[in-house]
């Protein structure tokens, strides 16, 4: 016990003083990295972590990040520092460049875990609070007994509340698995872990193995309390998933609510407009990647207006060359736009190839945060916000602008609108362009969660029509409520029935619902409709 404490204190001391490394077994250990054998690498990590050498932490971090290279011939190992400089791993001396046949030291999952654990031990006392937190969490997971003294000393010193909490939990985790801990310590530990209350806590408690009866009982009650707590949260989680699925459905359908809902064009090429938006994002990112990598985080902000313009422009083009000959014959628009969708798909396939293209998530759209016991991913959250914003803007546009009024007038009675001095052809083109443009920006958002492939649009077209029709054709609010209703219903059904049966159930529900409300959720009523 005391030996470990001393060891880790000395690591701390050494790394603080940055005393140059000593020659000897440490070098041999490092050299093992050059063997390109997972077992040797594992051994090396263990030995280095225990060596107390100041370079241990940099070496192991480098290994974790793939910045550690080894030359199999000379058995020399190098660290590429985050600033790009290269140093010799045994001496810390700067090196000009990597030898030609130096290759990154490989890891597999088992090793990665070892590395994480080792690094956790090494960074528990790091001055960087983020690292300390990560270390505490990794210790909680690995609950390595020999880290207890370090954890305890770290706990004593810690001043940040949340990290202190994490250390306390890490300590509790270790104690729980420590065979010689006293029952009362263990019971305290159970309480701490129970207070944490999340999946990890549950995992820890269910995986306890043999324990004194008292502890087993406490753990069991903690497990059931965590479980019931989690079950409650899972309702919240389903609701959130439903909202997020709803926002995707809404986003995909909203352009269709214009071209189909307002204009009456059965626009089978709607999905392809979405696809064009996604490909615009791809092109934007491609240019950014090759020319202005620093702008990557802004790529979506740039792509949104561009996608609107690209898809909108193509929409206008389609309206001018095809749709305008078909007003008043909605079913023929089905035929023509279906043809169009085939052409657009194949055009994209020819231009960009048939395979998926990579569209990356900017950093602000990656990852997740925890809210209570649910995980909210940033990309879904942003998509929800974005969708609502698009919806609000569109609604305001239709409601309060002259163009909005003209659009509605033209689509209700084109001939009379012309006699009121409305340039119907311009309005038609703009309306279709608007619907297409919105489909385009939907593509930008969908590129963040789905394939960017020529088939992208196909996978949304049916759902989009369902949403628009379910909500009530011609009513934007209906589309909104329809999308969220279907999204939430789907997500509450999915855990019960499974994804496939859930989807079938939703379809059957739509069919039955339409029997009750033959004109959708927000049906237009009154003689105005029949007029």
């Amino acid at each position, binding site marked *: 016990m005391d030996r470990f404490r001393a060891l880790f204190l000395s690591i701390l001391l050494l790394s603080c003083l940055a005393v140059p490394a000593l020659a000897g077994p440490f070098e041999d250990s490092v050299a093992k990295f050059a063997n390109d054998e997972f077992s040797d690498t594992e051994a090396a990590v263990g030995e280095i972590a225990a060596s107390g050498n100041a370079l241990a932490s940099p070496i192991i971090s480098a290994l974790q990040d793939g910045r550690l290279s080894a030359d199999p011939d000379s058995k020399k190992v190098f660290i590429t520092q985050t600033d790009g400089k290269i140093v010799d791993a045994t001496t810390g001396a700067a090196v000009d460049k990597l030898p030609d046949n130096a290759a990154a030291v490989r890891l597999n999952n088992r090793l990665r875990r070892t590395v994480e654990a080792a690094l956790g031990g090494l960074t528990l006392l790091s001055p960087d609070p983020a690292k300390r937190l990560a270390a505490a969490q990794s210790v909680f997971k690995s609950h390595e007994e020999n880290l207890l003294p370090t954890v305890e000393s770290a706990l004593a010193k810690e001043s940040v509340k949340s990290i202190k909490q994490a250390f306390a939990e890490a300590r509790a985790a270790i104690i729980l698995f420590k065979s010689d801990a006293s029952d009362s310590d263990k019971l305290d530990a159970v309480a701490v872990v129970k207070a944490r209350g999340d999946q990890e806590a549950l995992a820890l408690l269910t995986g306890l193995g043999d324990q004194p009866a008292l502890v087993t009982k406490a753990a069991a009650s903690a497990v059931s309390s965590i479980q019931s707590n989690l079950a409650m949260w899972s309702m919240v989680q389903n609701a959130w998933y439903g909202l997020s699925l709803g926002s995707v459905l809404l986003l995909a359908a909203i352009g269709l609510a214009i071209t189909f809902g307002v204009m009456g064009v059965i626009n089978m090429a709607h999905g392809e407009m979405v696809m064009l938006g996604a490909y615009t994002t791809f092109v934007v990112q491609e240019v950014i990647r090759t020319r202005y990598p620093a702008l990557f985080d802004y790529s979506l902000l740039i792509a949104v207006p561009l996608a609107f313009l690209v898809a909108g422009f193509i929409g206008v083009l389609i309206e001018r060359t095809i749709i305008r000959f078909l007003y008043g014959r909605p079913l023929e628009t089905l035929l023509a736009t279906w043809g169009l969708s085939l052409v657009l798909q194949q055009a994209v396939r020819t231009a960009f190839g048939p395979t998926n293209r990579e569209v990356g998530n900017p950093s602000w759209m990656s990852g997740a945060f925890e809210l209570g016991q649910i995980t909210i991913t940033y990309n879904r959250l942003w998509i929800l916000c974005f969708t609502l914003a698009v919806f609000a803007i569109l609604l305001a546009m239709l409601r309060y602008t002259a163009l909005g009024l003209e659009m509605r007038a033209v689509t209700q009675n084109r001939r009379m609108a012309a006699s009121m001095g409305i340039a119907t052809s311009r309005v038609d083109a703009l309306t279709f362009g608007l619907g297409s443009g919105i489909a385009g920006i939907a593509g930008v958002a969908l590129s963040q969660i789905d394939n960017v492939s020529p088939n992208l649009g196909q996978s949304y077209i049916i759902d989009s029509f369902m949403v628009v029709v379910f909500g009530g054709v011609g009513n934007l609010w209906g589309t909104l409520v329809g999308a969220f209703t279907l999204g939430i219903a789907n997500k509450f059904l999915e855990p019960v029935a499974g994804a496939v049966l859930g989807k079938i159930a939703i379809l059957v529900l739509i069919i039955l619902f339409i029997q009750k409300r033959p004109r959708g959720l927000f049906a237009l009523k009154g003689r105005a*409709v029949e007029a």
Partner: protein
Amino acid sequence: MLKVDNINLYYGAAQALRGVSLTAEPGKVTCVLGRNGVGKTSLLRAMVGQYPIASGAINFDGKDITALKPYERARRGIGFVPQGREIFPLLTVEENLKTGFGPLKREDRNIPNDVFSLFPVLETMLGRRGGDLSGGQQQQLAIGRALVMRPKLLLLDEPTEGIQPSIIKDIGRAISYLRNLGNIAIVLVEQYLDFACELGDSFAVMDRGAVKYACDRANLDPAEISRQMAL
């Protein structure tokens, strides 16, 4: 102001207008009369450009507008109250009126007070959807809508159809009010003879797509017109 010169119009092979000529002057009401199906509506459609004519010319404000699109004609000041009202059914009354803003300059984009003083019912129903109104209310809305455009030429296709007597009187008063403004030319298509005779400055009776009788207020003989229409 408006000069229709010898126009012919076909629906497919069926000829609906045969060499029709007609003029309308500011401050004057030109009445077009005739039985069902003689081509009155077709004539107005030709004037507003909703249906292409086969030959002939239409002059408005000194310019040939034969080739212009309907909306361009509307922007030059032709207001149209169609038969069957053609209200935008899902727009509210107010929005229906606002569709007339297109040809106007920004500062003119308001609903003239005339409209509400002529048809008070519209003011009370501003928020209701046009399509929900009763037939007569729609007719009033259609006239009001055309007035919002501040037209130089107003074409009315049977505006009294389906209107209660008191409002017919109102419409009559409205038409004479507009005529008396002196800067609007009015073409009134009617079957309601008394109404037409009261308002008209000149008269044309159509039959089978052609004007077969015409006269001025000066030599108006209602009995003769009635006889012409009955034939």
